[in-house]
């Protein structure tokens, strides 16, 4: 404006000399020629979607978080226990599960995009109140167990740093509660996520531990089966921690939250796939790292977080405890906040009562009551003296695995509902993979429950 011959507002507007004004903006950037009513016009307003790598990076989001949430305290315990106890033998399960996880998570986000609704919403609308209460109950039980796991993780991580869990756990509970209810949680979530990046140390540790890659390959691609109770138990635990009812719910509702519409769903599925592959790669390397260190050294039982941290020693040496502690703390805090929140949302959804952190206790008593209650429950139970930590963690994953077939049935029924899904209905390949996953998990659960019964009767050991 400085080139104006007449100072603005001091001379009549008609005397302004704007002839030096450019015809087009200096950074004309993207311009698009469109043919409209037979005339070609240049439009500059359209923002073209980013291309190349950036485009794919922007799609990543809920899938990555949901799947990474599977690598929480319980997940770490299960993977480490698996590696220590059975070496590379169970890796094939994880390879199969990567496909299953990708399929299940993708179905979750597709349901979200096609309907704009959460899983429990859809169950209530399509199958009625009774089924939705069942699904809600399952989620509530599974998540309550998981919340305890997260606080156990927080306590264990604290002890790795030489801090007392009696102080850290209550403080963490209060801080998480405060952050979620009073605001800056979205920001804190990013810190927790960054903390979990520490688990990238596992792939490196797995390589540096110098495993016998031939054995790893055999473990990964040749299914083995041992009719031992602990083998079956851990197998179901792996299913339960890798594919969790909570993760499907989270994937679906965050796809909805992101505003993915059904017309633009196509490329979004990459998010679910990438999340599944990424998180299972970390899980598999956790198993390899523990197998190559602890199992090889003859230590087949993991009693504490300190034991689990040993698997990182080939890579980071003495820093193993600290690094493991940071990762465990981040993962546990992340899930410790997300789980109670997601549960409170889900339950309120089913009951149709007011929900959301922007309300208050008086206006949304059920929502806030549940959220507070779950954090309290998690913190208190995790502090029970002599609670067998690793057993609890693994057992909760087994519980999750046991409940999984029920939520899977709902997903598979809904996603084949043409009226609901339209063109995003399941294809045949998806149905084969989806139902395959369902039968795999159901069989494993039935075999596990059967073997428990048999061992109680003294038939097997």
């Amino acid at each position: 404006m400085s080139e104006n011959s007449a100072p603005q507002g001091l001379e009549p507007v008609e005397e302004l000399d704007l002839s030096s004004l450019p015809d087009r903006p200096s950074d004309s950037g993207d311009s698009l020629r469109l043919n409209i009513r037979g005339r070609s016009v240049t439009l500059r307003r359209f923002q073209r979607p980013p291309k190349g790598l950036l485009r794919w990076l922007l799609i990543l989001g809920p899938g990555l978080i949901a799947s990474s949430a599977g690598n929480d305290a319980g997940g770490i315990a299960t993977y480490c226990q698996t590696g220590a106890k059975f070496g590379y033998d169970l890796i094939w399960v994880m390879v199969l599960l990567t496909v299953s996880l990708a399929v299940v998570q993708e179905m979750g986000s597709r349901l979200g995009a096609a309907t704009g609704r959460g899983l429990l919403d859809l169950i209530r609308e399509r199958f009625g109140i009774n089924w939705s209460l069942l699904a809600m109950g399952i989620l509530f039980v599974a998540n309550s167990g998981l919340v305890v796991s997260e606080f156990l993780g927080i306590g264990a991580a604290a002890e790795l740093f030489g801090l007392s869990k009696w102080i850290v756990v209550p403080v963490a509970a209060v801080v998480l509660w405060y952050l979620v209810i009073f605001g800056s949680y979205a920001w804190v979530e990013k810190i927790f996520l960054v903390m979990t990046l520490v688990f990238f140390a596992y792939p490196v540790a797995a390589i540096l531990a110098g495993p016998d890659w031939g054995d790893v390959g055999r473990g990964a691609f040749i299914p083995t089966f041992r009719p031992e109770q602990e083998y079956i138990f851990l197998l179901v635990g792996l299913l339960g921690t890798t594919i969790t009812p909570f993760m499907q719910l989270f994937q679906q509702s965050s796809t909805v939250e992101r505003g993915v519409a059904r017309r633009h769903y196509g490329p979004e599925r990459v998010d679910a796939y990438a999340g599944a592959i990424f998180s299972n790669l970390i899980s598999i390397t956790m198993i390899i790292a523990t197998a190559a260190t602890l199992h090889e050294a003859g230590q087949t039982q993991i009693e504490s977080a300190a034991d689990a941290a040993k698997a990182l020693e080939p890579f980071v040496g003495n820093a193993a405890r600290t690094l493991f502690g940071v990762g465990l703390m981040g993962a546990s805090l992340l899930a410790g906040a997300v789980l109670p929140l997601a549960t409170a949302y889900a339950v309120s959804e089913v009951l149709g009562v007011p929900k959301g952190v922007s309300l208050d206790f008086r206006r949304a008593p059920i929502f806030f009551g549940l959220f507070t209650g779950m954090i309290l429950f998690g913190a208190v139970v995790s502090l029970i003296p002599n609670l067998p930590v690793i057993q609890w963690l693994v057992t909760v994953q087994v519980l999750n695995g046991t409940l999984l077939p029920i939520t899977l049935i709902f997903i598979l029924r809904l996603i084949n509902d043409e009226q609901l899904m339209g063109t995003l209905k399941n294809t045949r390949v998806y149905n084969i993979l989806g139902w395959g996953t369902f039968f795999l998990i159901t069989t494993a659960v039935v075999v596990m429950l059967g073997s428990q019964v048999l061992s109680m009767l003294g038939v097997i050991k």
Partner: protein
Amino acid sequence: MVMLSELLHYRVTDAQGGNRKLIDLTIRQLDTDYPPVTHIIYHSTDQGGERVLPWKTVKGIDPAARQIEIENNKQAKDIDTLGQAVRLRRDMLDALILDLQNRRTTRANDLWLEQEDQELRLTAVDTSGRAILRRLVRSRSDSRDRRALYDWKYIEFLRGDPRAVKAGAPYHSRIVHLPPGEIAHLTSTIPYLHAAELLSLLPEHLAADTLEVMSPERQVQVFEELEETFALQVLKDMAPDLAADIVGRLDIKLAQNYLNRLPKAAGKQIIDLLKYPANTVGSIMTNDVVTVPPQLKIEKARSFLREKLKEPDFVYFIYVVEDQPPHKLRGVLSLRQFLTAEDEQTVEEIMNPYLLALTPFDSPTEAGYRLLNSQLAALPVVGKEGQLLGTVTIDAAVSQVAPRSWRAQAPKVFS
């Protein structure tokens, strides 16, 4: 008088008895305050599956015996004859509903029906947790339950299918009485398909006003789901700058389709705005302004402007623009000046020629601050030859300088 959940445990009997289980009730019209039940659907083992009977064949309801008495089942028809009717259990129970009285979204945990003369009418909805409990344990409702009932008169029922409106499905449509801002706020609490359905329910001009105040992400999501001719009409009724905002974020193919099919004048306004890249004054201005030639007598100008003042959202300033190309901007009149001027004065005589003007490729944030500092309602945007291109209103300025989280709530009074 009776809860739907209770009614669904009733049997349907006639003089011969008969073993029929009530499955559902249907309603054909929703546009009355308390819609009457039109048909009953029951399952009959001897008639082979689900059958439909008109409500007028019902003689009475007997709560003690838990049965609905019918004259006979001679008029029973096949289930396919129902058409678009709403089925209370299948469609409405457990569905998402809008409680307009409290401006909130909730679920129909149970439905309350009242008998009046020979009709059974839907009168209220129960949204309490007790209703769920009652359905679980199959207990009967007691008088205390009435506290959680919401009058059906103020309930809007949605299906989650944006195409249902045009397909002729019945609606209550009470929501049309709310101001657009409140409707937009309600739509932010429901899934996008429901939001699109709700918008389709409104008259086009109200849908346009509502769409204007939705959050940018929601706008596109919802707009893409609208039926094409409705969407075109809504786009035409929107302020051109806000319409351009939406079109600029659509898929290019879809945008081209709409731009080709819009009425010529509205289409040209939107296209002119789309020529400016994002992050310029051009991208936040509106070109829907009122102009008047300078030599006109005020008396003439009044009749000249009568029609022109009807359409645009921003009418507070009338811009004085030369009749001949390049249509140079000469000055401005406020609506007050214009109304209070003497008949025989000319526009030129009373206009204010000392104007601050913006140029189209300036930074929108700077322009926003400039406008706010000037304390005016709008600043004109002029082109290279001094021609009027449009105006940046105070609304646009506020949403430029406000923190991101406030932008959605920034007033859009003039646009």
